[in-house]
C-alpha cells in the first residue's frame, strides 16, 4: 500500500518505544538543521544513512523512493538560488550555486532523518500514545480514525481508477477530466458512506462516544534508549573535528 508505512511494521526496530526512536531521529534532525551545512549536512546524511541501512535495516529501495517526492520540491526551489532578481532585472547570482548546494544538502539530510523515523515507527504504535503527551482524546481518536479509514478509501480510489482506465477513462484529456470528476465524487460519497456504516458497526460493539483502546506495552528504558542519542553525538563530533581540520 504505502511503502514507508509497510516498512515500519516490518522494521526490526518495531519493538522499540516510539519515544526512543523520536529521540534518535530527532537528534539527527537537530544536527541537520543546526550544524553548519558544510560539512555538517553531508556528515549527518552519511550517519543517518548508515543508521537506517545497517542498524535499522531499512530496505534501500524504500528509502530511495521515499526521498523522491521531497526531492522534486527541493530541486525546483533550489533553482531560484542560481539567479537574482533585483532592480536591474534578472542575473546570475554570485555564490548562488553554493547557497543552492547548502540548502539541498541540509534538506537531503533532514529528509533522511524524517524517513528514518517514519520508516521504523508504525503509526499504530505512535498514535494512541499521543494522549500521554496531553493531546485531547477527541483529537487523537479522530486522527486514529483518519489513519484507519484512509487505507480503506485509498483502496476504493485505486480500484475505481482501474475501472475507469478499463473503460477508456484515460484515453483523452477530456476523458481524463470526466474520470477525475467521477472519481472525486465517488470517493467522497463512499468515504461518507463508510463513516455511516462504521457508526452502525461500532454501535453494535457498544460505542457511545469514545473509542478507548489498550495499547501494547513497550518498555521505554532499554539499552536502545541509552544508545539513541549516540548517532547525533557522533554526527556533531565528526562535524566539529572536520570543521577544525578544514
Amino acid at each position, binding site marked *: *500500500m504505502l511503502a514507508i*508505512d*509497510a516498512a515500519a*511494521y516490518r522494521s526490526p526496530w*518495531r519493538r522499540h518505544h516510539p519515544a526512543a526512536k523520536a529521540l534518535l531521529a530527532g537528534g539527527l534532525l537537530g544536527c541537520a538543521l543546526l550544524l553548519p551545512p558544510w560539512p555538517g549536512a553531508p556528515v549527518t546524511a552519511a550517519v543517518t544513512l548508515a543508521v537506517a541501512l545497517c542498524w535499522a535495516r531499512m530496505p534501500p529501495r524504500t528509502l530511495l523512493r521515499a526521498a523522491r517526492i521531497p526531492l522534486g520540491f527541493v530541486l525546483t526551489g533550489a533553482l531560484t538560488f542560481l539567479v537574482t532578481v533585483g532592480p536591474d532585472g534578472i542575473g546570475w547570482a554570485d555564490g548562488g550555486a553554493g547557497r543552492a548546494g547548502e540548502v539541498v544538502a541540509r534538506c537531503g539530510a533532514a529528509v533522511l532523518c524524517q524517513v528514518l523515523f517514519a520508516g521504523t515507527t*508504525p*503509526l*499504530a*504504535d505512535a*498514535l*494512541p500514545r499521543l494522549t500521554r503527551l496531553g493531546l485531547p482524546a477527541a483529537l487523537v481518536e479522530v486522527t*486514529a*480514525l483518519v*489513519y*484507519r479509514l484512509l*487505507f*480503506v478509501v485509498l483502496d476504493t480510489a485505486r480500484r475505481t481508477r482501474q475501472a475507469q482506465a478499463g473503460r477508456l477513462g484515460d484515453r483523452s484529456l477530456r476523458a481524463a477530466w470526466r474520470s477525475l470528476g467521477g472519481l472525486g465524487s465517488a470517493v467522497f460519497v463512499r468515504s461518507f458512506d*463508510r463513516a455511516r*456504516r*462504521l457508526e*452502525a*458497526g*461500532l*454501535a*453494535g*460493539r*457498544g*460505542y*457511545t462516544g*469514545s*473509542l*478507548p*483502546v*489498550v*495499547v*501494547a506495552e513497550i518498555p521505554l528504558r532499554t539499552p536502545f534508549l541509552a544508545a539513541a542519542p549516540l548517532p547525533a553525538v557522533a554526527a556533531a563530533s565528526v562535524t566539529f573535528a572536520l570543521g577544525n581540520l578544514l
Partner: protein
Amino acid sequence: MSAVLSVHDVAYAYEGAPPVFTGLSLHVPPGRVLVLLGPNGAGKTTLLRLMTGGLRPLRGEIRLHGKPVSYSRRGLTELRTHVQLVLQDPDDQLFAADVAQDVSFGPRNLGLPVAEVRRRVAEALAAMQITELADRPTHLLSFGQRKRVAIAGALALRPQVLVLDEPAAGLDPAGVTALLETLEELRSAGTAIVASTHDVDLAHRWAQDAAVLAEGRLHTGPAAELLADESLLRSARLTPAWGPAVGRLLRRHGLLPPGAPDPRTPADLDRLTG
C-alpha cells in the same frame, strides 16, 4: 431447553417504507447453531439488528433470558455484553490501527481494568486462532484475517450469543471450512450461534436449527427437516440443497437406510460408497 435470546411477535418497518415484517418470533437455544435463510432484501439483516439491539422493534419484544430488553443505555449495554453482532464486511466494524487495540475496544469500553482487558484480548485472539496477528496493522490484513479479527472483537465481550451476518461471504472454501471449525469449538463450549446466509448447502452442512424468512413470515425447525422442504425453499426464492436431494434419491434406491441423515458434503458420498 430454555432460550438465551428470543424474539416475540416483532414488527419492524424502516421510515417511509412498507413493513419488513409484522409479527416474527424466534428462539435461540444455547450451544446450537441456528441458520437464518432468506433471499436478499427479505429482512435477514434487519432481524439480526433487532436481535442485537441495533434497531428497536415497532411492536413486540426481544427477550434476554426471558426478560424483555430495555432500550435505556444500561439495558442496551446488558444486551450487548450477552449478544454480539458480527457484520458481513469487517471494514464496517474495525476502527483501530492494529489488531490487539481493536479487540480491546469492547472490554475497555465496558470499563474493565487494563489487566483484565489484556486477558480478554488474548483469550479472544486464541479462540479465533489469530494470536500471531496481535500486533499487525488492520489495513495490512487479508479479508479472511479481518473477518476473524471482527469476530474476536465480539468474543472479547464473552457473549452467550454470537450473531453473524453472512459469515461465509467473501471467504474461499478452505476459509469457510476453517471458520466453521473454529465456530464449532465455540458452540461446543456453550455459545449459541446465529448466522444468516442465502447458501442453502452451507446451512445444511452446518446448522442444527434453521429459520427460513419468506414473504415476511418466518418458518423455523430442525435444519435437516426444514431444508429438505423444497416448496418452502422455493417460496423463499432459494434453491434446493444438494444434500437432501441426494439423500432422497439414495434412499429411494435403497443405498441409504431410511433413518440415516442426508449427506452434508460431497466427501460424505465417497465415504458412503467406500
